[in-house]
């Protein structure tokens, strides 16, 4: 056993660090570090920088334009990027659709869509969830009826992240009501500029409109936009879910959040005492830091298995649950650390361009916004309850 990176891995990490230091635009990393809003252009700019370096499609094979990294290298990249306050790579085209097209797409689909994803020609979003469906994906009701060489799509998707930026959406749609619910689902690529598509933002408790509803009213989609076989979309959906799970522990993000918490706990004082010197608060930070130190190794153990060729299995459910618990605890402590100045609701201060002095310390509003926003961690991508169920069945065999 050896818990240290090999010389080659260390060198790779240094390469990533220098790349980030030299190429990550400071205005963007400052926004990430201070919890400000990122624009669509910020994301596109960062994607373009990574694309030029060949590091954008982290989990694509080299043949399709990926860097050819193994799980350990991906892990190093993702952690360093988070610690450097890089924006996350928007996953919908790169981490989700890309692998599905590579596996199930026709040669024409691959040739057409994959380079566009890398170049950022399209902003994709994900049309999986529907109102009333939650974690029960197989209950999709948005229908696609074949009429000539088109599908006519009607129905509604929800929780569609960043749909306001997107021009394309990949959807699970129902093409048959026969057999088991899973059997009548197809995987369809939909141009959001098509007549009949409307997007409505949903304001969340953090005050932001990160997610949307997307409505389809007799939207006509050419049949060549079907991926895989008609009624075979469940296979694509399941394949996508296993790929969604890269970096599921959110380790780099947790480390960056812990640093931010400590920084705030040094800055906040109660009377003469810095909050970090308060024994009870210090013990709460220490407890979550100890959890995080252990989870970093739990994560590496799973990553090492993946690098050795074993597909990431139900262990990723453990990483998602624990990673979520840790990040939500850090967020809660950060919210607690800002004290009474958690109360003001000042979304305008999430804009980098805001010139006015903040109310209270500048770290207060972003801390509260993040606390509320990150309630999502235990809900989306398979809720913590679903993950426990997976562990109980697949690992414990109960």
């Amino acid at each position: 056993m050896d818990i240290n990176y090999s010389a080659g891995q260390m060198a790779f990490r240094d390469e990533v660090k220098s790349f980030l230091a030299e190429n990550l635009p400071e205005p963007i990393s400052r926004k990430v570090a201070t919890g400000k809003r990122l624009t669509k252009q910020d994301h596109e700019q960062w994607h373009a920088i990574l694309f030029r370096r060949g590091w954008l499609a982290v989990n694509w094979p080299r043949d399709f334009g990926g860097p050819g990294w193994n799980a350990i290298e991906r892990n190093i990249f993702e952690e360093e990027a988070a610690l450097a306050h890089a924006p996350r790579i928007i996953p919908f085209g790169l981490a989700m659709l890309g692998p599905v097209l590579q596996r199930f797409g026709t040669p024409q689909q691959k040739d057409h869509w994959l380079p566009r994803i890398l170049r950022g020609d399209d902003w994709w979003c994900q049309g999986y969830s529907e109102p009333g469906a939650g974690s029960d994906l197989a209950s999709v009701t948005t229908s696609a009826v074949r009429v000539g060489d088109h599908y006519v799509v009607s129905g509604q998707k929800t929780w569609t992240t960043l749909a306001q930026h997107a021009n394309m959406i990949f959807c699970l749609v129902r093409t048959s009501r026969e057999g088991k619910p899973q059997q009548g689902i197809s995987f369809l690529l939909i141009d959001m500029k098509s007549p009949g598509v409307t997007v409505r933002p949903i304001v969340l408790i953090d005050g932001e409109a990160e997610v949307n509803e997307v409505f389809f009213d007799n939207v006509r989609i050419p049949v060549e936009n079907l991926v895989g076989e008609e009624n075979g979309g469940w296979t694509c959906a399941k394949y996508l879910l296993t790929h969604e799970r890269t970096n599921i522990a959110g380790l780099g993000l947790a480390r960056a959040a812990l640093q931010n918490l400590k920084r705030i706990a040094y800055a906040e004082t109660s009377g003469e005492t810095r909050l970090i010197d308060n024994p009870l608060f210090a013990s709460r930070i220490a407890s979550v830091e100890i959890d995080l130190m252990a989870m970093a190794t739990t994560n590496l153990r799973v990553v090492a298995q993946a690098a050795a060729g074993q597909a990431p299995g139900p262990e990723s459910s453990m990483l998602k649950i624990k990673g979520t618990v840790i990040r939500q605890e850090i967020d809660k402590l950060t919210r607690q650390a800002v004290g009474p100045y958690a109360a003001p609701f000042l979304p305008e201060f999430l804009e980098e361009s805001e010139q006015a002095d903040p109310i209270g310390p500048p770290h207060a509003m972003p801390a509260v916004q993040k606390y509320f926003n990150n309630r999502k961690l235990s809900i989306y991508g398979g809720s913590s309850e679903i993950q426990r169920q997976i562990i109980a069945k697949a690992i414990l065999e109960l």
Partner: protein
Amino acid sequence: MNFDLTEEQTILQGGLRRFLREQATPDTLSGATAGDAGHSHTLWQGLVEMGVPMALFPESAGGLGGSGFDISVVFEELGRVGAFEPLLESGILAGGLITELGTANRQEVIDQIIAGRILVLAHAEPDSRYDLAHVQTTADRVDEGWLLTGRKSLVVAAPAADMAVVSARVSGAISDRSGIALFMVPLNNPGVELRSYRLQGGGRAAEIALEAVRVSDNERLGGGNEAFAALERVHARACAAQCAEAVGLMNGIRELTVDYLRGRRQFGKPIGSFQALQHRMADMLIEIEQARSATINLCGHLDAPSAERERQVSAAKNLIGRVARQVVEESIQMHGGIGMTMEYALGHLAKRLTMVDCRFGDADWHLERFVRLSAVAAEEFA
């Protein structure tokens, strides 16, 4: 021993519940936050007409009761719907201090508050965090009056008020209990500047800058410079109000969540039939009952000697803070995505309940305070 409400309280509770259920709709509440005043004139007028502010004052001051349980009846109902009319600010805090300490025109002001005039207490400051004795704002003696200079922070409902009770230091160091005086300051006085903003839990607050604001001796509450004891007593009442409001919020959230668990189907069954959720909901219910008991304990000790009263304040605030976190996080989790939207009633209630912990001291702050306040009593074991 008796856990029943009086007949008057029962009537007030029923009337208030009906009124708020009809009037304090999500639209009214979000509209109130969006408006300049940060509250709803309709709701406020309704509350005043029902005599709600009057219920918060003792009979000796022209009120109807003002006991801990009068407070809890009122604020639990406000909490149940997530209303944030400035009853705590005007009736409990400003009105309470005026009742306690008196002013030249004490009864006149109290009558005005009962009739719907809104006053606030401007006490906390940018660096005070939760320390009630922290007062850096100064009151300098000039002629027959005083010049007030300093900054007051997080003055909830100030945008709706025309007058503030302002704390200022006449002597002593920044965190001394001694040397704090209170002054009535019209908010349109020269030298007073408000910066108004919305609150996460609904409504508005303001930062207030005081630049050599001139007030006369007559405007000094109680005519003295030792207002800390009254501040602490009134804050205990405010904590009781806040705890009762939190219990109301918890029960509002509980009802929404239980309804959702019953109605929402997944994998072919109501999600409320899943045992893991049933057990967590049972645990939540137990803790909400604990929160109610902690609030009863505090309300029943508001007139106790200060050592015991303050111990109950910290016990209640600690427990309420802990349970609030559990109720917020579990209810959102059990709802899933819908629980995170502001379009659904849970969103506002959950945010408001979260913010309970950021006012008058959070759970950990009160846990440590409880340890200190218990230390004397605990010496029996030494």
